[in-house]
């Protein structure tokens, strides 16, 4: 087997050094009832590269790759162009095959990347400090709520109906098992929620999303002030990181915690994961933050260097008193995010955001011209919602048969509700001909 370097002669010599007659003997502490006598039956034997490639490629061929057809699917994962440099760099073995940087003297590469990543996330969100990443945006959202509970010593979260339902569900799962209250409002494509009225003396936080799951952008400045006046924190969720190149960032609106999904930068769609959760807070809250943090220091020769720090918050030190049970983060996805952003730079990033917005404006105008379609949003970034005269799920399925991925029917996320709502995204990858194909097909099926 090509990954196993020991020869039979090695194995014999090693067993002799150990004083054992066979490898089986080394398993003698395992109860015989659970010990297998040989390789598991009913499963195939080892296979060469070519054979494995054929098997997996056959499965891959049964999927429609978003880049091969007109695609308008968003809702928390976005198709962007990732420069070739990103994927080349993340595959350098020194990044790809390193462990968590617990030995800083031989991990300065990963550590400096994390320090730069934290800075980039803080800049994008307009916040003071960020951690070294979370599993994804949804788990970051739930962790933000739990952090707010710790900070305020209150146990209730108000979740806006504009919050991505998966983020809502991850938070309510935690609420159920961990023991706090999560009040989830019904979906509100047109807004108009009175969140402040729901904030009471038990409320730790209000969670909103910008742009929300329907694509609507909102100014939460006044909401932040009103929440804080009542002793609650405002958590702003962002699922499209590219929007931060154009919109007033959550930090400037007064957010206390930002939980975001970073997939849009550097990371492929990957059928939903792995992605990279972004987590940023006001400076005064840093010691209640979950997840790993990288900090600057000096070495024995006085040179600048980086280490994982404030680890007394973490499970490997604090065990049952830790702020979170999180151990792994999304290191490599964070690296991809960071490299993509480094390539873009200030000019590239803000320009990319404007291109995305322009494409969406163009698409919205085109769809407004299709009979029976009307755009719900008055302000959006690169995604918006339309109503159709038929069930959106049926329309999406019919268009999929024509090899057009028309967007996400709202009913996919809100089961049994908003059945005529369709959510569509456009990015820099969307072409004129993609829009032509969509409008033509929609005109035909509606």
């Amino acid at each position, binding site marked *: *087997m090509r990954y*196993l*370097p020991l020869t039979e002669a090695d194995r014999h010599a*090693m067993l002799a*050094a*150990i004083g054992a007659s066979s490898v089986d003997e080394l*398993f003698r*502490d395992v*109860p015989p009832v*659970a*010990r*297998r006598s040989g390789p598991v039956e009913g*499963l195939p034997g*080892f296979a060469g*590269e070519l054979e*494995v490639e054929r098997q997996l490629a056959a499965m*891959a061929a049964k*999927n*429609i790759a*978003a880049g091969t057809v007109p695609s308008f699917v968003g809702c*928390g994962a976005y198709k962007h162009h990732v420069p070739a440099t990103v994927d080349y760099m993340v595959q*350098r073995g*020194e990044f*790809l*095959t*390193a*462990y968590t940087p617990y*030995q800083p003297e*031989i991990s300065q*590469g990963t550590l*400096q990347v994390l320090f*730069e990543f934290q800075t980039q996330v803080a800049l*994008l969100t307009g916040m003071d*400090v960020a951690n070294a990443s979370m599993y994804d945006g949804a788990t970051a959202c739930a962790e933000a709520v739990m952090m707010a509970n710790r900070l305020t010593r209150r146990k209730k979260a108000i979740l806006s109906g504009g919050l991505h339902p*998966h983020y809502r*569900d991850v938070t309510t*799962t935690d609420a159920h098992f961990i023991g706090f209250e999560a009040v989830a409002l019904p979906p509100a494509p047109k807004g108009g929620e009175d969140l402040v009225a729901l904030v009471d003396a038990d409320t730790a936080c209000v969670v909103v999303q910008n742009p929300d799951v329907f694509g609507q*952008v909102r100014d939460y400045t006044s909401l932040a002030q009103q929440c804080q006046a009542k002793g609650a924190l405002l958590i702003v969720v962002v699922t499209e990181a590219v929007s931060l190149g*154009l919109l007033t960032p959550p930090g400037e609106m007064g957010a206390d915690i930002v939980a975001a999904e970073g997939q849009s930068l550097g990371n*492929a769609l990957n*059928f939903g*994961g*792995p992605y990279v959760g972004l987590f940023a807070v006001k400076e*005064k809250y840093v010691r209640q933050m979950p997840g790993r943090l990288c900090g600057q220091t000096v070495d024995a020769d006085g040179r600048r*260097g980086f280490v994982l*720090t404030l680890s007394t918050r973490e499970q*490997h030190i*604090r065990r*049952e008193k*830790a702020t979170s*049970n999180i151990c792994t983060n999304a290191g490599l996805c964070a*690296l991809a995010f960071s490299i993509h952003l480094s*390539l873009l*730079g200030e*000019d*590239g990033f803000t320009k990319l955001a404007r291109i995305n917005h322009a494409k969406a404006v163009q698409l919205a105008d085109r769809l407004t011209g299709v009979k029976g379609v009307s755009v719900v949003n008055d*302000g*959006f970034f690169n995604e918006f919602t339309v109503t159709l005269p038929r069930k959106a799920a049926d329309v999406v399925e019919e268009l999929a048969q024509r090899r057009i*991925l028309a967007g*996400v029917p709202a009913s996919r996320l809100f089961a049994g509700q908003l059945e005529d709502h369709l959510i569509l995204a456009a990015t820099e990858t969307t072409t004129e001909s993609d829009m032509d194909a969509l409008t033509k097909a929609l005109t035909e099926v509606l």
Partner: protein
Amino acid sequence: MTMNSQGRPSTPAGADSAVPETVTGNRGLQIEEALIFEQDSPGMSGVDLPAVPAMNLRLGAVKPRAKVGLPGLSEPQVVRHYTRLSQKNYSIDTGLYPLGSCTMKHNPRLNEKMARLPGFADVHPLQPVSTVQGALELMDALAHWLKTLTGMPAVTLAPAAGAHGEMAGMMAIRAALEHRGEKARTRVLVPESAHGTNPATAAALGFSVDPIPAGPDGRVDLAAMEAKLGPDVAGIMLTNPNTCGLFERDVRAIADAIHAAGGYFYCDGANFNAIVGRVKPADLGIDAMHINLHKTFSTPHGGGGPGSGPVVFSEALAPFVPVPYVVHDANGFRLVEGHEQGTEFGRMKAFHGQMGMFVRALAYILSHGADGLWQASGDAVLNANYVMARLQDTLTASFEGPCMHECLFDDRFLKGTGVTTLDIAKALIDEGFHPMTMYFPLVVHGALLIEPTETESKAALDQFILALKSLAVRAKEGDVAYFQGAPRLTPRRRLDETAAARKPVLRWTPSSEPALAAE
């Protein structure tokens, strides 16, 4: 003059071979690299984008932001930046990485290639199910392998990492207890040798953590465990093979005892790589066990993630799984995202799991096959026992063998030398090795936990053994200064972690502004 293993003098012969000071601070291939923010060339970009189409912004009440504050660099500058940074990392591609309990084994590049097939990488999680049948088939195939290898009837692929898998498993136990109407079961037994994530997970879910002491043989003290059972016990979280690298001989008795007391058996499967394909967890009485795809099935650790932590479940817990999961019926594969059985619990992350990791893990599994996995776990255990046997006379092994995939030493061999476990680790770095896991598990003093994995050759192990033995001898000879000054040959020497924590600097700020310090 002493000679090293290369046959050259091991101490500098004269001034000519001393490390010189350089003007740049660079030392040959070790190149100093400024922060990316310190290399700003305003207006520069490494990405050429088309002009922004003319438009009126349609942002409703939101204003466009003025500035982000990112630096501008060209593509070659960015490539050089990350290349230089990468060269400051040790990695499994570089050499032996014997971090006990972390399982740093070879990461085959075929797996990377497969994960990048557009049919997997470029598929959106919310595409119509009819357009992602191959992706669901892959998830189903991986689930089949995991169930067959463990003998367990159900699996969830949703958790994003091992600790997340622990969460899923303990949530399932809580859900099952709720279903039985036994909310009063709030105590979880956790051995002292457990990973920190175990007590953290139990505590996060509101369970009280009751530690069980280890017996003199490094395993759970069965009598002490049985004495802690009672009507308020929800279950036990047991790592097996445990973090001392030993198989829990009494695992069946432990399982029977916890079941008789009405609790469940959660097994931390972080060390499943030791037994994969050779031991059937279902026959150990386990109710839930997470499997770290980034350990046992070699998806890359990536400097700290992403991971993936599927959990297998017994019949008793099978109804209590998080959504979503894949089912196969007459119309093909589909995702269950709602509560079809009525006993599922909620979502644990957005979308359907760490698909990119599933592809890599399945590529690894198909490459090995059942016979390759049998050989892999056998070699992992053989390598660890070989290291243990060869170091037995120099270091102090904490417990009697055989060990499983890792071997545990403590610092008794350093007694009276003034050299610590940490010092040994730092000196190993200068010898070209990543150190072993240190000071974990907590059940022995100054632990050194060595996990070589099956992808190391005998020659690599022999060199590591030679280095470690030589260091042990040097420590016993009293060369304390050598150890305390180590490492000397690395991009950075020992870093001041106390200062970093006392006054945290967690981001770059322009030097004209005061550094951010959070107190």
